[in-house]
């Protein structure tokens, strides 16, 4: 990237940065001017200062929960890709399973959180991973399947003209076609995994988990600590999302630059 292009990137980001600073500034100003109660809405400056002073509690808690989210993300997304491959390959299996998957997609999976707690030891991270995995599974599975089925008829015809076998057609056409779909789903799943892990912890979890920390802090009116916990969750969520975006840039290198 030339320095000029890099500068253009920075300039592109400026408006968003300005809006962010403005919103935080207005928040800070309004809370001060209107003397809003701490438990209703703490000042951003308070949240950041608690984020720093309570770092020995919050940061390890964040890391603990992040690992749960990551585990659930990997398991759920992996299972989603495997399921999509099977359904995409065997039409019979697909027609038997797809209605079930689509119906399952309408179930608010978070509602299962207390039940997962009962299935696994609620203190252990497995139940949280399970929730995150279940949340990630369907969007990844449905999107990947859509991608695998999106190969253009002309491309398949061309492969047939080369007398290509099925494995070769998958490797050279279906899988590359599916990759952009997969990454769209993984971006969605990265956010869902954090939600799954934290909400799962609201129903019980290890004391040093982020969801438990946020939940307990709220119950004892330490709202600035709860907000600082949310800030940790937000930063980790962004980190996971950014990791997926980076992976996408490395793998899907052929796309035209996105109109942003």
């Amino acid at each position, binding site marked *: 990237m030339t320095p000029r292009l890099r500068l253009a990137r920075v300039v592109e980001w400026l408006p968003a940065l300005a809006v962010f600073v403005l919103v935080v500034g207005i928040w800070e100003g309004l809370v001060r001017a209107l003397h809003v109660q701490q438990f209703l809405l703490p000042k951003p400056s308070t949240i950041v200062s608690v984020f720093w002073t309570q770092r020995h509690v919050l940061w390890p808690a964040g890391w603990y929960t992040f690992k749960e989210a990551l585990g659930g993300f990997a398991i759920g997304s992996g299972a989603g890709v495997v399921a999509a491959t099977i359904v995409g390959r065997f039409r019979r299996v697909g027609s038997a399973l797809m209605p079930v998957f689509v119906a399952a997609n309408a179930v608010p999976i978070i509602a299962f959180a207390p039940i997962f707690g009962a299935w696994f030891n609620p203190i252990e991270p497995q139940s949280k991973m399970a929730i995150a995995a279940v949340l990630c599974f369907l969007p990844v599975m449905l999107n990947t399947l859509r991608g695998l089925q999106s190969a*253009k008829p002309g*491309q398949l*015809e061309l492969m*047939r*003209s*080369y007398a290509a076998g099925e494995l070769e057609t998958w490797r*050279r056409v279906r899988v590359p076609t599916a990759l952009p779909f997969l990454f769209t789903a993984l971006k969605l799943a990265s956010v869902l995994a954090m939600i799954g892990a934290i909400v799962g912890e609201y129903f019980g979890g290890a004391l040093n988990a982020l969801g438990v920390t946020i939940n307990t802090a709220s119950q004892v009116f330490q709202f600035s600590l709860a907000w600082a916990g949310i800030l940790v969750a937000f930063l980790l969520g962004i980190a996971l999302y950014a990791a997926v975006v980076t992976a996408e840039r490395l793998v899907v290198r052929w796309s035209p630059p996105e109109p942003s």
Partner: protein
Amino acid sequence: MTDPVAAPAVVRLEGVTKTFPQGNVTALQDIDLAVAPREFVSLIGPSGCGKSTLLRVIGDLIEPTSGSLSVNGKPARKAREDGDYGIVFQDAVLFDWRTVAKNIALPLEMLGWERRRRKQRVAEMLELVELTGFADHHPWQLSGGMQQRVAIARALSFEPALLLMDEPFGALDEMTRERLNLELLSIWEQTGNTVVFVTHSISEAVFLSSRVVVMSPRPGRIAGTVDIDLPYPRTAQTRDAPRFFELVTEVRQLLRSRGEHLLPEEEAVLE
């Protein structure tokens, strides 16, 4: 015209019929056609006359319902498996995730050519279609005409005897189409391929071909054949020659007479 009996035909169809079970549509009926080596044959007809279906039958992408068919003296399936033909579609059908060079190299990779040999052939093909310098571009960076040239280079990269083209320039503007027509002729003269070319443009068919096969719709049948006796190499001036206009008129009349003749029949089918 080349005598189809004397020369061993590259493509030979006898009584080929194709019926699609959905709606019981007869796309092709009793097609007899022989294409000799080095011939440039265009299939022309209104949409729905089965000309693309016929091309796909030759390429063993669609199986005929009845009739016999040989390509390069072999059953069509064997010819396809042996890589006896290259095909170009109306849409360039390039792979977005591959560069221009890798798109051209795709059939070579599948044939197991080693890297250095592939690279050399790709360079030759890029020169042939005048795209040297675009090897590392991605398809989205090319114009429609350039994409179609990549598709032609890919189809010819493994030196198939037969080139099948399904309205390859149909989606391009008139000026690009005329330029690519000239380029295609020059490529054909260099490579010595046999070409079967589907089009619905009369002037394109006459300009390119050594023989134009006119088809009529529902069911798809060969309405007649016009030998194009314009001398090769043809140039932009060929389009201005009086003989060119005579041949265009001849093809047009053949298309029109068959169309009128078929209209009542079509109405009968609709009833």
